């Protein structure tokens, strides 16, 4: 008699049943879909769903089904022409376009009941779906120097207020990027200076020394502060990139940090990489400043001397150099909304300021009626130059005065910016709306896969999977007969269990991932072979069939455990060190080891015990 505890049967049955349910969503395939999200990021309501549905019906567009998923509305279509017709109908309607962002995508054909349970198929990687992968390098050093510039400004102000004479306050002097150096006049009161700087330089580690030019105070950010500042810059950039990706209407984008100073952006279905990258990577903001009308800009250009408290802009769209007051009335960061529109003077951006900036604007316009105010467009971009034979990328700032207009009336938080070209207003509105990037980012890796290549890769992966598994199943059945069929069932259960785990983890399926699944099947056979060869050996020794099965499982265990651990080591290292599709392969490999241990040891034993355990007169086993 061969026995197996009842709880183990129940465990195996329960795990496999659950696995089946979790793996199920992967078999239904996808339909073309339109994804509709609100521009203000609030949730799409069931009422809005009704509206969209009746809108589509009114425009004669036939759709299969619509449902709300994670605050967004998904509308599924039977065919791509239907999907495109819906997109055109929606984009042709101004009201709709101003409220919603739409994206053409694919939606799983998962039945309602499974979707309600939160069950989803594995998302497909870019190599299977087509799309754009971008790896951005974040200029974290400039984030640190930006923060230090802020401290430096405060320090200058405090020293001036305390009437302490200083020569210079510099950031990053002497190659120390995390340090502010304050050079005082000879004979200045260092103690007084330090106490004046106490408040503005709070948190920095301050030291004083002296050199030939006079006393020096140095303030440095601690390593922790530098790291915090860098992390903040990366987080801010990720948020902004996410906003921009959403604004562009990309469905199921991935924006995530990679390593210390990288951000990886995956955009399924995106083909036009030039336009997308241009918008994603742009650092643009606005500044509103009063014009300095007391001095002549031309004179400043000729003499090279800029009046105190003013700044000279030579690159302008208004066709002449201009002097603007240093004081900034409002910046692009203080906007609460920005939309593109039209004015008598051409394309425009309608902006709304937050409360503080609005108050400032109100005060300024009241006090400066009939004086000119200018809008400065500031863009930063990376530039690569060769220094000592090495390529160095650094940040370049372009400032452009886009308009200069007389303040005709008092206004506060809501107004229009003109002086833009068509198309530019729409892009600027998007950039302002999505928030600015904390620092310049630049692409260090880009991979684009066309949609046809993606389909081709899926077809190839699936064919290899079916043929490979079919070959293994056939071989096992021929070689081990009934036991081979049992092994095949166990292998199938293993694939289901692995798929279920990957779906639960929302692991992105890539082509190497499919290879990993197939390889897991190939390797999982090993455990069965070890057990069966042992059983055959035991039978040859003359042991009774049932005792042979028991001995086979028991004696093969250590070899099975051993052989899986060695693969596990490689899998875990790859999981930790790999990125992208390679990590996908490692995840599948590692999980596959766990699932195959479970199915070959417990699943196959349960099945074999069920088949042979109760038979009293078992003369021989059909093990080939």
């Amino acid at each position, binding site marked *: 008699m061969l026995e197996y505890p009842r709880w183990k049967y129940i465990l195996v049955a329960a795990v496999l049943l659950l696995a089946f349910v979790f793996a199920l969503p992967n078999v239904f395939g996808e339909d073309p879909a339109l994804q509709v999200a609100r521009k203000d990021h609030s949730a799409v309501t069931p009422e809005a769903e009704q509206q969209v549905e009746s809108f589509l019906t009114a425009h004669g567009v036939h759709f299969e089904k619509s449902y709300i998923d994670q605050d967004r509305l998904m509308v599924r279509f039977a065919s791509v022409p239907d999907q495109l017709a819906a997109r055109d109908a929606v984009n042709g309607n101004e009201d709709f376009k101003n409220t919603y962002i739409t994206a053409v995508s694919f939606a799983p054909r998962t039945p309602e009941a499974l979707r309600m349970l939160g069950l989803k198929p594995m998302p497909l990687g870019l*190599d299977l779906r087509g799309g754009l992968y971008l*790896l951005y390098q974040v200029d974290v050093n400039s984030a640190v120097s930006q923060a230090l510039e802020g401290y430096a400004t405060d320090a200058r102000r405090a020293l001036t207020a305390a009437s302490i004479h200083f020569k210079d306050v510099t950031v990053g002097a002497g190659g120390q990027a995390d340090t502010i150096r304050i050079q005082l006049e000879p004979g200045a009161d260092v103690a007084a200076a330090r106490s004046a700087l106490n408040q503005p330089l709070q948190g920095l580690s301050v030291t004083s020394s002296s050199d030939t030019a006079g006393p020096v105070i140095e303030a440095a950010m601690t390593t922790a502060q530098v790291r915090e500042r860098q992390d903040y810059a990366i987080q801010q950039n990720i948020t902004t990139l996410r906003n921009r990706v959403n604004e562009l209407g990309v469905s199921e984008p991935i924006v995530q940090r990679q390593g210390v100073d990288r951000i990886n952006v995956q955009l399924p279905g995106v083909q036009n*990489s*030039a336009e997308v*990258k*241009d918008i994603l990577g742009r650092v643009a903001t606005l500044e509103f400043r009063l014009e300095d009308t007391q001095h002549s800009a031309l004179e400043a250009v000729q003499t090279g001397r800029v009046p105190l408290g003013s700044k000279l802009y030579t690159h302008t769209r208004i066709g002449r150099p201009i002097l603007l007051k240093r004081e900034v009335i409002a910046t692009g960061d203080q906007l609460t909304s920005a939309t593109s529109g039209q004015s008598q003077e051409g394309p425009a951006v309608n902006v709304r300021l937050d409360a503080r900036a609005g108050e400032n604007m109100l005060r300024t316009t009241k006090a400066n009626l009939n004086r000119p105010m200018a809008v400065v467009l500031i863009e930063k971009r990376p530039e*690569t130059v060769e220094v000592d034979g090495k*390529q160095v990328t650094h940040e370049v700032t372009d400032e452009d005065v886009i308009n200069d207009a007389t303040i005709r009336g008092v206004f506060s938080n809501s107004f229009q910016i003109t002086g833009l070209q068509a198309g530019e207003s729409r892009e600027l509105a998007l950039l302002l709306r999505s928030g600015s990037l904390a620092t310049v980012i630049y*692409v*260090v*890796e*880009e*991979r*684009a*896969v*066309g949609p*046809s*290549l993606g389909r081709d*890769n899926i077809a*190839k992966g699936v*064919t*290899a*999977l079916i*043929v*490979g598994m079919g*070959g*293994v199943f056939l*071989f096992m059945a*021929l*070689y081990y*007969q009934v036991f081979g069929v049992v092994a095949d069932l166990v292998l199938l259960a293993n694939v289901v269990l692995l798929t279920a785990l990957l779906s639960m983890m929302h692991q992105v399926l890539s*082509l*190497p991932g499919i*290879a990993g699944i*197939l*390889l897991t*099947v*190939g*390797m999982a*056979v*090993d455990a069965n*072979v*070890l057990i069966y*060869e042992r059983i055959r050996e035991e039978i*040859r020794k003359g042991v009774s069939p049932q005792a042979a099965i028991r001995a086979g499982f028991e004696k093969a265990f250590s*070899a099975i455990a*051993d*052989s*899986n*651990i*060695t*693969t596990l*080591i*490689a*899998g875990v*290292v*790859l999981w930790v060190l*790999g990125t992208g599709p*390679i990590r996908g392969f490692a995840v599948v*490999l590692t999980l596959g080891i766990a699932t195959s241990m479970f199915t070959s040891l417990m699943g196959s034993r349960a099945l074999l015990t069920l088949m042979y355990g109760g038979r009293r007169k078992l003369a021989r086993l059909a093990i080939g």
Partner: protein
Amino acid sequence: MEFFSHQTSYPFMATRKVWYTLSALLMIVSLGSFLMRGVNLAIDFTGGVSAEASFPQAANVDRVRASLSAAGFRDPSVQNFGSSRDIAIRLPPDPRQTATAVRAQLETALRSIDPGAQVVQLDVVGPQVGNELKVSAAWALFFTLLGIFFYIAFRFHTWRLSLGAILAVLHDPILVLGFFAITQMSFDLAVVAAILAVIGYSLNDTVVVFDRIRERFEGNRRSPPDVVLDQSINQTLSRTIMTKVVTSIVVVALLFLGGPVLKGFSAALLIGIIAGTYSSIYISSAIALDCGLTAEHLFPTVKKAALDHLP
């Protein structure tokens, strides 16, 4: 069905000089070609541009190359792949070019030959990313080998078995590297992943054989070691071959049906699996034998005398 009669008795130990020589030759050829020619590193490691384009009609590789050179690309490498209408383009890294510009220029250059040409895949890897991937691949290899060595040291109680396992483990990736050096197939990140998997797989056969050696010694400590080792390998032979045949079925399916993306990956696996099977049958146990492995090393006899002094 059975491939092997109930008990094979191939004299692996007696013939081991032959297998050593064969292994040594293969390793010399592999290392030699690796050192002399190196492997054809993909842009994953070198940085640069790799693109695939498809033409409506058969593409003239020379014209494409000329047109790319005319467009200002330095040393473009252009090859047909898959069909005569598909071409693969590879460009060396140029930090002054942005990815956006590359795509636009490529498309313009290709469309000047045929307006229907399309860039279906474009990979641009910056040189610094390439270097980092090289470093992280090297670390992955290092940590895997380190993990395996620790495991071997923990698992086998005598250095004689450990040495056999380690040499067998090093043997296989070297042959894979040699294969890539000789064929100059593109060596990308996926190939590194395959090599790591090979290291894991290769050891597991050795472990199974060694497991059996221990079991055999336990039963008959007086038997001569070469007989025990031969028996152990013969007894596990059908399992070793069976498992590898089945794994090879799926790898061959990947190699021929998985498309160009998985070509290098599956080729590396196939070579690695064949080498691994060979080394675990012919090399690892033989080395243990030449290091003087006996039952004593696995089951040290407890000295009776020492016990006598206990109260």
